């Protein structure tokens, strides 16, 4: 998969390396801004309140 992506990128080698890094950065940004905040609701570290049913 990654080999195929790298082969498909246009331009000379140095340009493809830069493009590949940009792609990785883009994916990481997408994850941090959209995927992780959504995933976070299932995370085991973010509950700190206590049962509210009594009040």
């Amino acid at each position, binding site marked *: *998969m*990654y080999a195929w992506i790298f082969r498909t990128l246009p331009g000379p080698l140095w340009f493809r390396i830069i493009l590949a890094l940009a792609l990785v950065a883009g994916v*990481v940004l997408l*994850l*941090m801004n959209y995927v*992780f905040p959504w*995933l*976070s*609701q299932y*995370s*085991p*570290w*973010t*509950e*700190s*309140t*206590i*049962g*509210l*049913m*009594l*009040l």
Partner: protein
Amino acid sequence: MTRSAVRARTRPTVGQRLLGGFGETLITLGIILLLFVGWELWWTNIDADRAQTQVTSEFVQGLQVGPGDGTSAPEKDFGPAPITEIPDGETFGVFYIPRFGSNFAHPVTNGVGMDVLNNVGIGHYPDTQEPGELGNFAVAAHRQTHGQVFWNIDKFQAGDKIYLQTRKGFYTYEWRDTEIVHPSQGEVLLPVPHDPGAKPTTSMLTMTSCHPPFTTRMRIIAYAELESWRPADAGPPAEIADLVKKTMEK
């Protein structure tokens, strides 16, 4: 041997390619999971710290505060503390807790939904009492992630003070005790904790967070009692005067 001959000999079969793709997918998922852990435990703190610093400074800049006279909280008696009314969903105060760090200044906002706790740190349980009111002024914050505001909640020692600044002035609470309860034990939020129907005679502050760290199995509850108060124009108590000044200049 020509180059194309080498390639022809080493070209993978369909099965090898599928297996290779499967391996790449697993490696990718592993990296994404590690990234997520890093994001949750580290990046959310940076994000939340930035947001909370901004909320704090916006809040304190709207306050009129006297210069302070170098006296500590209980030295002067300003009479009974007034009640700070809490508007829906608004930031209404700043907590200064020296035990949590000499620079600890975090805003407190009405509500304990994830929108409050994840972004602005400390949240007030809307159905509990208000600062200065007889009963239980209860708040929650994360033990880790999103600023980990109450990370040190287990470190309180006898005599520790917790300061709350609102537009009315400065409330000084003194830590009393800490307990660990099951997440369903909402009775810690009652006007008199664990005693339904009892009439409160003191103004308490109850802080809740997760326990043990990095799990949500139990809750840690720290109780404090209102010890004294100073109106805003009398200035902050001497113990936090520098920190208040620094926070207001930010």
